């Protein structure tokens, strides 16, 4: 027990939290931007899978990290666009569309993985690339903080930067203002000449954009291969994290960190005879409670009503 406590209070644990949080954070931002526009995207699971797969394949066959990055992001954005097309033009319910997308992504990635590698489990037979880890010059000299915050994958830093990007996007740009306006009251937004459908498309494309990085990090940073259904529910956890943070930048970061910490913690204690299952369910239960309190306050008029999630 004491060794476990020791390792939890060591800087390495902080390092692991950041590592585990990175894919969640990208996905959470993807959920947040879509939810803010009033159409919550529960298809991040699928978006991440397809991007992860595309990144690995392109990097293995072209040996170019840049091309892999571009292709992976393009794949994520494309999936966002497909969802937007079905939802806004063919009038598929956005939840159903996203569920279908998740099935599609799971199937198509395994299917193509098998065709390319002859293996249905992982792409480890391919020599795919990973994004580099970077040591931050001054930071790595600071005793504890250095060991927590330096030496991460470049995408981990980009994830943190993305919170800032998201903040600027929604508070400082006309598009962000419109996304929030559409989410809060589409009729009012329409009446001042905003094209609601276009704004929702942009939000879903952005959702695909953020999600894509989550997928790329998973397969080309967190580990160095693609494996079937490797997102393992992170796209859904992201919904929890984003909801917990009421889709706002800093709070979504905190929500992701909470879920990241809990899963890091459960990795650490899995060697003990402590029921890690019970610990793992806590953040989900907390999310339900937070969602309820938040919705209840909106409902009773204590805070202004943002458009209900769906």
């Amino acid at each position, binding site marked *: 027990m004491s060794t476990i406590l020791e390792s939890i209070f060591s800087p390495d644990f902080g390092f692991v939290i950041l590592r585990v949080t990175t894919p969640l954070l990208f996905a959470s931002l993807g959920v947040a931007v879509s939810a803010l526009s009033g159409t*919550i995207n*529960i298809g991040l699971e699928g978006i991440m899978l397809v991007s992860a797969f595309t990144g690995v394949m392109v990097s293995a066959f072209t040996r170019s990290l840049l091309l892999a990055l571009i292709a992976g992001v393009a794949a994520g954005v494309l999936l966002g666009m497909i969802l937007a097309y*079905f939802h806004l*033009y*063919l*009038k*598929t*319910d956005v*939840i*159903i*569309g996203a*569920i*279908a*997308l998740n*099935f*599609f992504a*799971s*199937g*198509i990635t*395994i*299917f193509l993985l*098998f*065709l390319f590698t002859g293996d*249905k489990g992982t792409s480890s037979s391919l020599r795919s690339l990973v994004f580099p880890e970077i040591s931050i010059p001054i930071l790595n000299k600071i005793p504890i903080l250095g060991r927590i915050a330096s030496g991460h994958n470049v995408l981990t830093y980009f994830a943190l930067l993305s919170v800032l990007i998201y903040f600027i996007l929604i508070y400082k740009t006309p598009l962000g203002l419109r996304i929030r306006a559409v989410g809060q009251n589409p009729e009012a937004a329409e009446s001042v000449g905003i094209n609601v459908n276009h704004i929702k498309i942009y939000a879903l494309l952005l959702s695909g954009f953020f999600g894509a990085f989550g997928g790329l990090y998973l397969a080309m940073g967190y580990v160095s291969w693609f494996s079937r259904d490797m997102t393992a*529910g992170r796209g*859904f*956890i992201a*919904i*929890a994290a984003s*909801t917990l943070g009421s889709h706002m930048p800093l709070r979504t970061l905190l929500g992701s960190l909470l879920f990241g910490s809990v899963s890091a913690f459960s990795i650490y204690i899995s060697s003990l005879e402590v*029921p890690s*299952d*019970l610990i*793992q*369910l806590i953040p*989900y*239960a907390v*999310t*339900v409670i937070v*969602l*309820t*309190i938040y*919705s*209840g306050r*909106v*409902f009773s008029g204590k805070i202004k009503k943002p458009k*209900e*999630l*769906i």
Partner: protein
Amino acid sequence: MEKLILRYFNLLRTAIAITIGVILSIIIIYIVSREPTFSLKAFLLGPFQNTTTIGNIIETASPIIFCGIAIAMSFQAMQFNIGAEGAFFISAAVGTAFAVSTQMPSFLHIVTILLISAITGALWGYIPGFLKAKFMASEIVSTLMLNYVAYYSGLYLINYHFRDKKAGFMVSHRLAESAWLRQFIAGTRIHWGIILALAFALITYYLLYHTTLGYEIRTTGSNQNFARFGGINVFKVIIISQMLTGLIAGFGGMTEVMGIHRRFTWQLSPGYGWDGVIVALIGKNHPIYIVFASLFLSYLRVGGQQLKLLSDVPPELVLVIQAIIILLITAEAFLRNVKNRIAIRKAGYSKEAGIEHDS
């Protein structure tokens, strides 16, 4: 002809969506397989080749029917409860825990176990229902989260309290024979669960279309304000519809344990809740159609297994095809132009016969 098309437009659109899905799978098989004709035969006809495979279709359909009907109870009230997955899992875990720790004569044992599971499911469904009705908490998010809570609680219950340590892998103790649902067709694993599933389909059909509660559920679903002004207790309907979802899914989860595995074997959530969403959509939330949709889905699944066993085509093809079918079936605007054109023509703007297809 035109009248028929308009009348059965939804059915026709479903049929077209399924046809497109099947045609796509044929095309894909021809592209990727070295022996396309053989693979295609394995996929489309394989499921019917012998008693075992036909049995497989029916066995696989059983939990899907339960979850499909379960989901439909909420969807009919326009409650996007996707918590059948969680209710299925936790009710099966609680039911198993009860089953392995009690001894009773067979019939009584079976009835009490199923009752316990159904009650567990209903209570589980009460949570998102109450939170939605009382606090307007989005049931989509809450049920997604509760699925995880159910999953981890179920695992905790089985792995820490009812685990069979002698089994060598993470499973519960074996159910006593008094708690088994009999498999009644030799050479297959078809068990009483399928009969119960069909019974549930009939009961829920009656409930939805021939009782006051069913009317209230459907009215709440089509227009909540109208329902409220019409004197329907929407608060109650929202909760009851989601409790029914939990109840039916939970009952189905336990029949699967009692009929097929005879112990709790899931370390991963088995995914029937999501299948339930698919068949509820294909079957337009109608219990009887859902039975057929479930049989169709499990036919595809068994076809996928045949692909895996016999051919060089990855069975995940099925996941891709079912996704495309769902997207097309639920796309309200898909083929709507055709429908509108026929309606206009019928109204007398043109007397030209024949149907044009919209791309």
